[in-house]
C-alpha cells in the first residue's frame, strides 16, 4: 500500500493545470463525494488562526505510520502545539516589520484522476460514478464479477486504502521536503522539523488535506540511528525520542542565546543601552532564564518518588526521578487504573537485589514503593503490549483486554503531592494493529478541541463516534489494541460542560429545524451533528424521529438538492431523485429471506408508498418553486467558484492551493439510524 502511494508521488508534480482541466471535464459526472470529514466541516466559518481546526492526513513513506500517528497526537496536544509555535520567542530586532520565518512548503498538485501517474500504473482510477456503482454492488452483497478480478484494495470504495488514495487525489498536498536551515535562528533539528509541520498546518488556508512530513523524518532519522531503516518502528519509542530531542534542541538553543547575550553585553555602551532598552520592552524575549525554556518539562514531565524502607533499621529513604511517560505492565481483564496501581505495588529488595542502606551501612533487605510526587499536565501511558518471551526469543504481543476510561485520576500519589485528585481526560489513543512487534500499523484516535473524536490513519482523517474509542481494549477481532494513551489535565466542570454540550448540539440542531427550509446554508449545523459515524447506536439524539421528518422536509430546500450523494446510499442522486431516495432509505429494505417476510414486506411497502405519494404531491409543488431559485443559486455559485479559483490561483503562487471543493451540501445521512430497524420495519404483527 505504501509503495503504491509512493508511486503516485512520482507523477504530476507540475501539471496543476491539467488537473484543473480534468476537473472541468468531470463536471458532467456526478460530483466527487465529500468525505465524512468534509461534510462535518461544511460551513464551519472562517479558518481559525491557532490551527485548532486543521485536519490533515500525513503521508506515509513506507512504515512511517509510527511517526504519523504520534505527530498527530502531539499536534492536538493544544498546550504543546502552542508552545512549539511560540518558540523561540522572537525579539523585535529579529522580526523587523512583522517578518515571520517562512516554512519551505511546496504544494504538490493533487493527483489528477486520469493523470499520468495512474496511467503509468496501467489502470485508470475509478470515477465517482464507478465508485457508486461498485459500492452498490458491495452493499447489495453481490460478489464482484470475475472480470473485475484483481481489484486493488484502494479501488474498493470505503476501504481505508481507497479513502487514503482519495485524500491524496483531493489534496492539497503540502510537502515539506526541503531544508530549512537557520529558521528561527536554530540549526535544523527535530524541533525545527516539528515546528515546520505545525507552522505549515496553522498557516494552511484549507482545513483538510495531506501533509508530507518528509524533511522532519529525514532530520529525525539523521539524529536517531536506530530509526534509519524502513522497518516497523515502535511508536512509543518514537514519542520518547522526539520529546527528548525537542528538550535538548530547545536547551541547546537557550544556551546559544545566553552566550549571544553575554557577548552583546560586552559589546560597548551603546549596544548595552540598546539591549537594556529592549529588555525593558520585552523582558522575556530571550535568554535561558526566560520561562520559555522549561515548557516541554512543564507539559510532559512528572516526578516519581521511590520510597525505600530498610527492613533492618526501618529508615525510609526517598529518591526522586522524572518521567515523560509511564510504562505499565498489563494484566488480562484489567483496567488502566488498576495497572497503574500495580505500578506502585510494594517490591521486596532481597537476595541478590538487596538495598544499600546508608544508615546501617551495608546491603539490607528493603521494601521499595514507587509513587507519583508530581503529576504532569499531559500523562502519557505506555501499555506494555510487547513482551519478550524466552520460548520464542522475540517480542510477543499481548492481546489482554485492558479497559481505559475517558476520565482518570491517579490513586498512587504521594501524601505531599500537589492536587492528588487531579482529573485527567483521555484525548488520544495510539493504536497498534498487528500480531507482533515487528509488523503492523499505527493509527491514532484523537479528541480535537471542538470537533469531537477523529481517526487519523496516515493520509486519511475521519470523524468517529465517542464510543469508537472503546474499540481498542484489545479483545476485539482485528488485532487493534491501544498502545499509548494520552491523558491531559482537565477539571470536573469542563468535563461536565463538554458532556452537556455533546447533547446540546443535538438539541440546537433540532430547534433549528424550522429554519432549515428557508435558510440556504442552514444545513451546515445539521451536518455538524449528524455526520459523525457511530460505532454503537447509542448516541442517537432523542428526537431522531424528528430528524427524519426534517430530512424529508429538507429535500426541498435549496441547500441540499445540489448535493453530492451521501455515501451510504448506493445510487447517485440528482435533483429529482434525491427526495425519493431519501424516502426509500427511510423505509428500509425488506429482508429477502422467507416468503412470508417478503409478502409482509410488500404489503408494508405498498402502504408506505401510498403515504409517500401523498407527501410527494404536496412537496412537488414546493419543489417546482424551489427549482427556479435553485437554478439561480447554482449559477451564482458556479460563478463564485470560478472567481474563487482564479483568485486563489493568483493569490497563492506559493501557498497551498485551495481545493476545488464542491460547494453543494451533502446531505447528512446516518446509515445507522435506519439499519437496526430493517428487520422489524415492515411487519405489522
Amino acid at each position: 500500500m505504501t509503495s503504491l502511494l509512493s508511486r503516485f508521488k512520482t507523477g504530476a508534480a507540475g501539471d496543476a493545470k491539467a488537473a484543473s482541466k480534468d476537473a472541468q471535464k468531470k463536471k458532467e459526472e456526478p460530483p466527487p463525494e465529500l468525505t465524512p470529514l468534509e461534510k462535518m466541516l461544511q460551513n464551519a466559518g472562517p479558518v481559525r488562526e491557532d490551527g485548532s481546526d486543521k485536519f490533515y492526513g500525513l503521508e506515509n513513506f513506507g512504515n512511517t505510520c509510527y511517526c504519523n500517528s504520534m505527530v498527530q497526537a502531539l499536534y492536538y496536544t493544544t498546550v504543546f502545539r502552542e508552545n512549539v509555535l511560540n518558540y523561540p520567542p522572537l525579539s523585535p530586532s529579529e522580526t523587523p516589520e512583522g517578518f515571520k520565518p517562512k516554512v519551505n512548503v511546496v504544494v504538490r498538485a493533487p493527483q489528477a484522476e486520469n493523470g499520468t501517474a495512474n496511467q503509468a500504473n496501467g489502470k485508470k482510477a475509478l470515477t465517482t460514478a464507478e465508485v457508486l456503482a461498485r459500492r452498490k454492488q458491495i452493499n447489495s452483497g453481490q460478489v464482484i464479477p470475475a472480470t473485475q478480478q484483481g481489484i486493488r484494495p484502494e479501488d474498493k470504495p470505503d476501504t481505508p486504502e481507497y479513502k487514503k488514495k482519495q485524500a491524496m487525489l483531493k489534496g492539497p498536498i503540502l510537502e515539506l521536503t526541503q531544508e530549512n536551515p537557520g529558521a528561527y535562528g536554530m540549526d535544523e533539528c527535530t524541533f525545527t522539523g516539528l515546528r515546520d509541520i505545525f507552522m505549515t498546518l496553522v498557516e494552511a488556508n484549507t482545513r483538510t488535506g495531506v501533509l508530507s512530513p518528509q524533511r522532519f523524518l529525514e532530520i529525525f532519522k539523521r539524529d536517531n540511528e536506530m530509526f534509519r531503516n524502513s522497518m516497523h518502528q515502535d511508536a512509543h519509542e518514537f514519542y520518547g525520542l522526539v520529546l527528548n530531542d525537542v528538550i535538548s534542541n530547545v536547551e541547546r538553543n537557550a544556551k546559544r542565546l545566553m552566550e549571544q547575550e553575554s557577548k552583546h553585553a560586552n559589546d560597548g555602551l551603546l549596544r548595552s543601552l540598546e539591549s537594556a532598552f529592549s529588555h525593558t520592552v520585552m523582558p522575556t524575549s530571550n535568554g535561558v532564564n526566560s520561562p520559555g525554556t522549561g515548557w516541554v518539562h512543564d507539559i510532559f514531565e512528572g516526578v516519581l518518588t521511590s520510597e525505600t524502607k530498610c527492613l533492618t533499621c526501618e529508615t525510609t529513604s526517598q529518591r526522586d526521578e522524572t518521567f515523560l511517560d509511564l510504562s505499565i505492565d498489563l494484566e488480562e481483564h484489567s483496567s488502566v487504573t488498576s495497572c497503574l496501581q500495580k505500578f506502585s505495588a510494594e517490591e521486596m529488595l532481597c537476595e541478590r537485589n538487596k538495598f544499600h542502606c546508608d544508615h546501617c551501612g551495608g546491603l539490607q533487605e528493603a521494601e521499595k514503593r514507587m509513587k507519583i510526587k508530581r503529576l504532569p499536565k499531559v500523562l502519557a501511558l505506555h501499555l506494555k503490549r510487547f513482551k519478550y518471551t524466552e520460548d520464542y526469543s522475540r517480542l510477543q504481543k499481548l492481546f489482554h483486554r485492558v479497559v481505559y476510561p475517558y476520565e482518570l485520576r491517579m490513586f498512587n500519589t504521594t501524601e505531599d503531592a500537589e492536587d492528588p485528585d487531579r482529573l485527567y481526560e483521555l484525548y488520544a489513543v495510539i493504536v497498534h494493529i498487528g500480531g507482533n512487534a515487528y509488523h503492523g500499523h499505527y493509527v491514532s484516535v484523537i479528541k480535537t478541541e471542538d470537533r469531537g473524536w477523529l481517526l487519523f490513519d496516515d493520509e486519511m482523517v475521519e470523524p468517529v463516534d465517542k464510543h469508537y474509542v472503546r474499540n481498542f481494549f484489545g479483545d476485539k477481532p482485528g488485532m487493534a489494541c491501544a498502545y499509548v494513551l494520552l491523558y491531559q489535565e482537565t477539571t470536573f466542570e469542563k468535563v461536565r460542560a463538554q458532556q452537556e454540550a455533546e447533547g446540546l448540539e443535538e438539541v440546537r440542531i433540532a430547534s433549528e429545524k424550522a429554519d432549515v427550509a428557508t435558510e440556504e446554508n442552514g444545513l451546515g449545523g445539521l451536518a455538524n451533528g449528524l455526520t459523525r459515524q457511530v460505532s454503537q447506536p447509542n448516541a442517537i439524539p432523542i428526537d431522531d424521529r424528528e430528524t427524519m421528518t426534517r430530512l424529508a422536509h429538507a429535500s426541498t430546500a435549496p441547500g441540499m438538492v445540489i448535493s453530492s450523494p451521501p455515501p451510504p446510499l448506493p445510487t447517485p442522486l440528482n435533483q429529482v431523485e434525491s427526495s425519493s431516495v431519501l424516502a426509500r432509505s427511510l423505509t428500509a429494505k425488506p429482508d429477502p429471506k422467507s416468503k412470508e417476510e417478503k409478502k409482509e414486506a410488500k404489503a408494508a411497502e405498498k402502504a408506505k408508498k401510498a403515504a409517500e405519494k401523498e407527501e410527494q404531491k404536496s412537496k412537488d409543488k414546493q419543489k417546482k418553486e424551489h427549482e427556479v431559485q435553485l437554478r439561480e443559486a447554482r449559477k451564482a455559485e458556479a460563478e463564485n467558484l470560478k472567481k474563487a479559483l482564479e483568485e486563489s490561483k493568483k493569490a497563492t503562487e506559493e501557498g497551498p492551493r485551495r481545493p476545488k471543493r464542491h460547494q453543494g451540501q451533502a446531505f447528512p445521512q446516518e446509515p445507522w439510524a435506519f439499519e437496526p430497524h430493517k428487520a422489524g420495519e415492515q411487519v405489522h404483527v
Partner: protein
Amino acid sequence: MFVLPPPPRYPTQAAYNAAVAAGQATPMIETNNILTTPEEQFLVGEGTYVLKEDLHLATPPPHPSEAPVINPNPLATTPQPATAGTKVSLLSFAVRPPPPAFYRLTSATALSASIAEHPNESRESQNAKLSSDGEGQSASFSDGGPSTSVTAVSAPAFGEGNASLAPEKTKDANKRRKPKNNMTKSNSSFISRVIINESFTKKLADRPGDGLFAFANINRAFQWLDLSSPNKADYLTKILFTKAHCLCHAVNKVTKGPGHLDLIMGFSTGEIIWWEPISQRYTRLNKNGIINKTPVSEIQWIPGSENHFMAAHMDGSLIVYDKEKEDAAFNPQEEEETVDGEGETSARVVDHLSRIQILKSVHSKNQKTNPVAIWKLSNQRINAFAFSPDNRHLAVVSEDGTMRIIDYLKELLLNIFNAYFGGLSCVCWSPDGKYVVTGGQDDLISIWCPSERSLIARCRGHQSWVTSVAFDPWRCDERNYRFGSVGEDCRLCLWDFNVGMLHRPKAASVRHRGSISSRTTNLQRAETQGTTASRIRSNSGYSGFEGAEDDIQSISVPVEPRSMTATIPPVLTKKADKDPLCWLEFTDESIMTSSKTGHLRTWKRPSDNPGPAE
C-alpha cells in the same frame, strides 16, 4: 403445542468462541446449553461457598441474513449493535421465608413489603397478606386485581390522581389481559425463531411450586429456564430475535402467578416486547422506535404497578410505558400545549444538572397512548436505575458518572452524586433504603447516603470496571450490611460495612460543608425505618429544590477528594469466572453470577446455618 424438531447436534460452544476470538466468520449454527460442575470454592468469615454448578447458556450465532465478516477491518467505523452480556433474573411463585436477619428488623414496619422485593421470592406472601387486610390504598389501582398496589403501601401509586391513567375496568378482576400476538405463530421479521421445550406443559405442571425460574438474555437470544428441573440445561422456551439484541428484561412481581407472567424486554433497537411466557403471546411497544430509537439499557416495572414500566434509553431519557397502550409518535411541542403552566417543558435547553426535563409528565391528561411519561435526565446514556425499597425514589446512574436520586412520583430531581471519575454502570439500594451503592469505571464501588447527601465510603478491590452490585439481605441487619459486586476483571468481591465503622472519625469531618454535616450528626442512625424514609424527602429533597439559586447548586454533591474518604477493602475477592462478569444476585441458598459469555454460576452458601454477620 407447537413442536419443533429437536435441536440438531452441534459442535461445542468452545469452537464457536474460538472462532469469534480469532475474528473468523462464526459458524452459522446454534449450540446447546451445557451444564458442568467444576470444583471451585471460596472462604469468607461465615464459611465456605462452593460452586454448585456452571450452566453455560449458548450464545447464538448471528442471524443467517447477516453476512459473515471474513476479514474484519479493525478500524471499521460501521455501527455495531449494543450488547449487554448475559443478564439474568430469577423468579419463584412460591412463598419463601424472607431473610431472617431482616425479617426480625422490619417485620413491624410498613417498609417490609418493599424490602422483601429484593429477594423476590418473598413478595407473594406479603402481597397476599396485605391485600386481604384491605390495605391497598391506591385508588387508581384498587380494582386492578387481587394483589395490586400493595407494595406501595407506604407510597402513593405512580401517577396517582391522574384520572386518565386509571386502568380500564375488567369484568373479571382475576383474569389478566394477555398480549395480542401469538409468538409461536408469529411471522414477524423481528423474531427469528421460537423454540419451545417438547414437554413444556408437562414440565410446568410437574415442577415444585417453590422452584426457581431464570430468564436470561444473551445477545439476540432470550431463554427461559427452570432451575429446579433435573435437566436445567434444557430451556423451557428460547426466542431468537433477528437482529435486535435483547439488553435487559424484567418480570412483573405484582401480576406473577402460575398461570400468568408479564415480562418485558428492552432491545438494542429501542424497541420493547411485552411477553407472556406461559401463553406465548407478545406485543411490541415503541415499535420501530416510534417513541425513542436509542437502545434500552435498563427496564423495570414500576413497583406495585400492573401495567406501567420504566425504560432507560441510551440518549439519557427515562420513559414510562403502559404495556397495554398503543404507541403514538411523541411530539414534545404538542405535549407542552396540553400541559400548561409547566415552565420546564417549554425551555428547549435545560440545565440537566439542576433538574430533569419533563417532556411529558405522568400528570399529562393525554394518556390515551404511550408514552405515559418521558423525562430527559441528561444527554448521556443511562446505564442502570433502581427503585428504592420504599418505592418513592429512583437512583439512576449514567455514563457521565452521575448518580441521580429522583422522586419519581413527584418527578423531581433531588440530588446528583458524582463518581470519582468515569461513568457509573450499576446501582442498588440497601434493603432498608438507607444507602445506595454504585459501581463504575473508576473500578470503585461507592456507598452513598442519599438522606445525608454524602459519600460514606469508597470500596477498592476490583481490578477493572464494576458491572453489577447487589446487597445480600440474608447477611444484613440493622447495623451490618453485606453486598457483593462483580466486574470486568472476572472477579466477585464481597464487602461488609457497618454503621459503627462509618461513624469512624475521618479527615472528612473538617470539610467545609458545615450545614450538611451538622445536620447529619443530629440524626441518629438508630432511627426507625419510616422516619428515615421521610427524612430523605423532607430534609434534602424539597429544601434543595424549592429553595433559591444557591440551593440548586447544592443538588449536585461535589466529588470528595481521596484523602477525605474512607476506603473499604473487600472481605473476599475471587476470580469467579474466566470471562468478565456482568450480573450477580443473592438467593437464600446461593450467590449467582453470570459472565459475558453466558456462564451462569451458582455458588452455594456455607452449609451451616447462616446467622447474621457480626
